[in-house]
């Protein structure tokens, strides 16, 4: 199979790569672009560890072909902090011990960012249903939800 040339934007940088027609965006990010922050937990869109934002919507990058990234705007975990300033969600996840092993954390942060970009003041139920596509086996989700609530409050400028 001949490779396909793709030009796209990842974390506001212009990126070009070659990929096979059946190669997923996740494999491109991890194996060709060295962006290993997105993790593969299942490869079938069931665990959310590979979540990335494509044109404003959070998607599983294991269910997107690399070729489909042409001309799209992609955000991965590596682009979430601005230089050395962590995103409030990143800071709150550490503060609340909202991660233990951390393999699911990049996916949760990307999904939570997509939520807060769209809904700055979500209820607990809205957070839990929005994040239902991100599996975590260590924490039982309690501290993850609290960290998202705390980050949302801070981003709205309210005291925690």
């Amino acid at each position, binding site marked *: 199979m001949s490779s396909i040339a793709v030009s796209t934007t990842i974390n506001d940088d212009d990126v070009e790569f070659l990929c096979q027609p059946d190669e*997923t965006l996740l494999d491109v990010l991890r194996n060709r672009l060295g962006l290993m922050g997105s993790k593969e937990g299942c490869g079938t*869109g069931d665990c959310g560890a590979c979540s990335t934002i494509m044109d404003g*919507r959070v998607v599983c990058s294991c269910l997107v072909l690399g070729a*489909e990234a042409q001309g799209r705007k992609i955000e991965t975990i590596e682009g979430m902090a601005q230089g050395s300033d962590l995103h409030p969600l990143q800071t709150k996840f550490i503060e609340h011990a909202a991660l233990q092993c951390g393999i699911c954390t990049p996916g949760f942060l990307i999904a939570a960012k997509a939520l807060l970009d769209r809904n700055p003041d979500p209820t607990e139920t809205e957070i839990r249903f*929005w994040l*239902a*596509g991100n599996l975590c086996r260590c924490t039982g989700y309690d501290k993850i939800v609290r960290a998202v609530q705390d980050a949302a409050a801070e981003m709205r400028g309210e005291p925690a």
Partner: protein
Amino acid sequence: MRYERPDTIQDATALLASAEANSFVLAGGTDLLVRMQNDDFEADLILDIKSIPGMDAVSQNDEGFVIGAAVPAAALSEHAALASAWPGVVEAANLIGSTQIQGRCTMVGNLCNASPAADSVPALVAAGARVRVAGPAGARDVAIIDIPTGPGKTSLQKGEIVEAVLLPHPAPRSGDAYLRFIPRTEMDIAVIGVGVYLALDEAGIVSSARIALGAVGPKVVLADEAAAAIIGTRLEQKALDALAAACSAASQPIDDKRGTVAFRKKVAGVLARRAATAAYARAGGK
């Protein structure tokens, strides 16, 4: 395997018609890419329809709504007019998978994947929706129920692509609803799905109804006896009991890893009762 992304529907149907053995249409890809992980998946052509103008648009004309084949389910609830006209269809589409899946999956993909447990299909069948099928010889409109023919099989001919879902404007005093059973609160494939559409006369009596059941047979089931059970009633207890019994009778499920025959038949009746009650309320029935 080739990946093609044509700019016009004509090029798309031509490419599909000329492809050798198995070719696949890619819209959201949330079913197709899972199947591609399988070791013995073979494909000559993956045809991405997302560059064809209009495919990702929801528009209205005098007959009703035209929903492009590449419109992701998440976008449906963001379309105010559609969400208020057809709440049942939109809630069914929004139950497919997780937030991440919602950002990609499409109703047409859900339909053409032809899983008996597809969530949006019972709601679309109840709503009386049709699809516009484009082919090398031009377009034709087909009732949704005629597309799936069995697990993983559709009635589409070689070279044909479903271009859009066509939803009529809802009749006055009408309402639709969709409910499904899943063991968790999210992320599961429907063990049972029930779509209900009904319209009332001025006196609040059900004048017309359609009940469609998912995951209870090789393909979506239009339960005419169930509809008959509530036509002419105000959904009194007796009518709802008859509706439930008819739905259980119309269900021919299998035992599989997601549910037993007895469970599916019983819960089909329970969900039909609840969905009908919700649709009745939406139609303004007291």
